[in-house]
């Protein structure tokens, strides 16, 4: 029997790192109500920290890519784990809202952002030639699903032991990752005397990245002159607002407003995370076969209708809510494969990474805007109805935007979808 190729070990470590980083990032949404109860801070105040955290999780990624090129993947990930551990551990001592913004918002946001999508792209590109798409897909799914599946356990801790226990658990888990990454993570296949998985002698080792800052700004310059870039960015902004920002952050406190226990509410989100895996795979499969604009048209249209249905779903208790969960879960990041495919069609595969980086940044800005906006709406209006309905309407707007993506020079057969940017 052949020995396991070391690429799979690296992929495994990366998978766990991404899963954990996403879990760390999502922890604050289980803390909203406990923090409100202990310190008397408003939802708007607490949501601001979540918003900072969401923005940095998305926007720090391109810069983390540069750091990884300069200092090495292993060192950057180790530093990120220590940063998350410190940021999360120190919250135990916090007294003032600005400390929450600094620790959960800035420190944990930068730390988790350093371990996000760019890490997936770099590892997949350096270590795999064959199965690169599969690995990239699995690593991307880890990033999306990890934000949801740990919530029940974290919520249970927050309710039964206290929010400080959740924070310490995150700090401890990040510290536990340190030896694993230190011993198992390697920079390049050559470091362990191998070629990338499935690579032949003819395959060049993955070329070093261009200066990430310059490449990133160049991608923006390329994008802003293109109508499709704006249509994709605005619709992806709405996507982020209606997933991570609104539902990911506020479904738990909103369900608690309607009398559901916190752990049950967190389990609902975790269920979304499970359906999300199925939905993303189906969507990737569909993207190979159908017009991506139509896929997005239906995804956004149906998501909008289910959000408009949500305030009524709370009225008819569990059944309506379960219907919403299944439906919304299937649709959660199903928008990613068609959006990437459309970006690839418009800008070509060579420019996809940098341009998609900006489209993804728009996604995170949307998430942050909704996380903060919905918290503010709840604080001032006493109910989430306005927030849910507004995002439902925005999704319908997105459906109208994506169907108008041009046009004339798009080829009939689309290039194979890439589930994540390849920087």
């Amino acid at each position, binding site marked *: 029997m052949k020995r396991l190729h070391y690429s799979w070990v690296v992929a495994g470590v990366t998978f766990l790192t991404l899963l954990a980083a996403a879990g760390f990032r999502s922890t604050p949404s289980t803390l909203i109500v406990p923090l409100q109860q202990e310190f008397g801070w408003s939802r708007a105040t607490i949501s601001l920290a979540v918003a900072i955290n969401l923005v940095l999780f998305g926007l720090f990624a391109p810069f983390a890519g540069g750091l990884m090129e300069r200092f090495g993947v292993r060192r950057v990930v180790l530093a990120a784990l220590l940063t998350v551990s410190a940021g999360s551990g120190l919250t135990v001592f916090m007294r003032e809202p600005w400390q929450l913004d600094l620790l959960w918002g800035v420190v944990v946001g930068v730390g988790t952002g350093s371990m996000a999508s760019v890490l997936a792209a770099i590892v997949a590109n350096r270590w795999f030639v064959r199965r690169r798409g599969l690995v990239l897909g699995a690593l991307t799914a880890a990033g999306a699903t990890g934000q949801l599946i740990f919530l029940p356990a974290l919520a249970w801790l927050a309710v039964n032991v206290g929010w400080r226990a959740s924070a310490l658990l995150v700090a401890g888990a990040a510290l536990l990752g340190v030896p694993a990454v230190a011993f198992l993570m390697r920079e390049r296949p050559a470091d362990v005397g191998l070629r990338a998985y499935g690579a032949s002698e003819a395959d060049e080792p993955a070329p070093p990245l261009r200066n990430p800052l310059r490449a990133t700004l160049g991608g923006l310059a390329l994008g802003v002159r293109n109508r499709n870039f704006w249509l994709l960015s605005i619709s992806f902004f709405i996507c982020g607002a209606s997933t991570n920002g609104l539902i990911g952050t506020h479904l738990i406190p909103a369900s608690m407003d309607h009398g559901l226990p916190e752990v049950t509410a967190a389990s609902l989100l975790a269920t979304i995370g499970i359906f999300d895996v199925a939905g993303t795979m189906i969507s990737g499969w569909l993207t190979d076969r159908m017009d991506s604009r*139509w896929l997005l048209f239906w995804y956004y249209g149906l998501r909008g209708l289910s959000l408009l249905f949500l305030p009524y779903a709370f009225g008819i208790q569990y059944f309506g809510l379960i219907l919403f969960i299944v439906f919304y879960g299937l649709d959660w990041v199903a928008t990613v494969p068609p959006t990437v495919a459309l970006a690839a069609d418009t800008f070509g595969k060579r420019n996809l990474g940098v341009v998609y980086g900006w489209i993804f940044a728009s996604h995170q800005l949307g998430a942050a805007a909704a996380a903060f906006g919905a918290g503010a709406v709840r604080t001032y*209006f006493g109910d989430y*109805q*306005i927030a849910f309905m507004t995002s439902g309407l925005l999704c*319908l707007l997105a*459906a*109208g935007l994506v169907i*108008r993506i041009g046009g004339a020079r798009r080829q009939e057969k689309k290039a194979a979808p890439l589930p994540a940017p390849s920087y």
Partner: protein
Amino acid sequence: MVGTALALLPVTASAHARLTGSDPAPGVVLDHLPATVNLFFSEPVTPAGRGISVYRPDGHLAQTGPARAQGSRLSVALAGGTDGTYAVVWTVIAGDTHPSRGEFTFSVGHASQVRAPGQGQGDVGLVAPIGLFLQALGRLMHFAGFALAFGATTYGLFVARVPGPLRLAGAGVALLLAAEPISLIAQTASLDPTQTFDGDALTSMLASPFGRVLALHVAAALVLWALLGALRQAPWLRWAIPALGRALAAVDATAAHAAPSLAPPLGLALNALHVSAMGLWLGGLAAFAVAPADGFGRVATWSAGLLVVSGAALALLHFANPLELMTTAYGLSLLVKLPLVAAALVLAWRGRRRWELAALLSVVAAAAFLVSLPPPR
């Protein structure tokens, strides 16, 4: 999509909320200040703003907080106060989104001068006149937008089979969207013109049943806009447009006066039919002006017929006796509307399409007022 829209509809049977009783009763003189003021309405209500404001003889508020609603009862707890006359001002939203307000006084120990803000003076149909005007304006824009968005497109897609009338749909979407901010400030202006742009008043309105109907109106306009974009690549989707139109008519029906003495689904269907027929006739006429086609005569005949029959049924259901035509604002508006309908029908019969369009627009304007007023029953 239509199924989802129908599932979203709140099933309520209601008209404008009227005060049917109160404790303390209007005008009584009590020995002691009661602990609470209870108001009883003709149907379940949502408080707008404070819901109830009780003013002490010195003009300050006498209550401890905002009013709480329990079905059709609204109550507010009172803090202590001096002897004299207290003014009670109430502002509520009914299940069908219509706002209404009113006021009365009661006294403790002895009567005194009332120093409350004089609300409810000169009200028309339980609301401030400026609010009523804005409500009617918002509804006129909504109905006209509905006609252009759905009637004109239905005519263009299924009768004339030319793309010209589809351009009117864009204007229809714009009108539908523009109508909503006007309807929103109409609600706040109806209850208190001085608080029209007050943030709390506007947001409490959005959190009420009115907010849900507003969201569904905007949703229908956005879905239509998305469909218009999709139509270029998938012509078969044209069937979704009349279906969406019917769904929006059903939403409108929940926000219209429910027909009394009729099972709620039947009343809703009758209202929705009336709105749909209006859209088809008016929108078809506008589209006919852009792209004349022979098939229009049949569309006009059928839609006018349905409009008159459903309208007559609704009118009969809302009146208990013919005198109410003369004694209520609702009846008087109907008296204005009827000759306009007759004129539109005559002009239609004689094929004077432009004049027919003008007459029909004035009918819709009259209808917009009618729907904003409380029916006799």
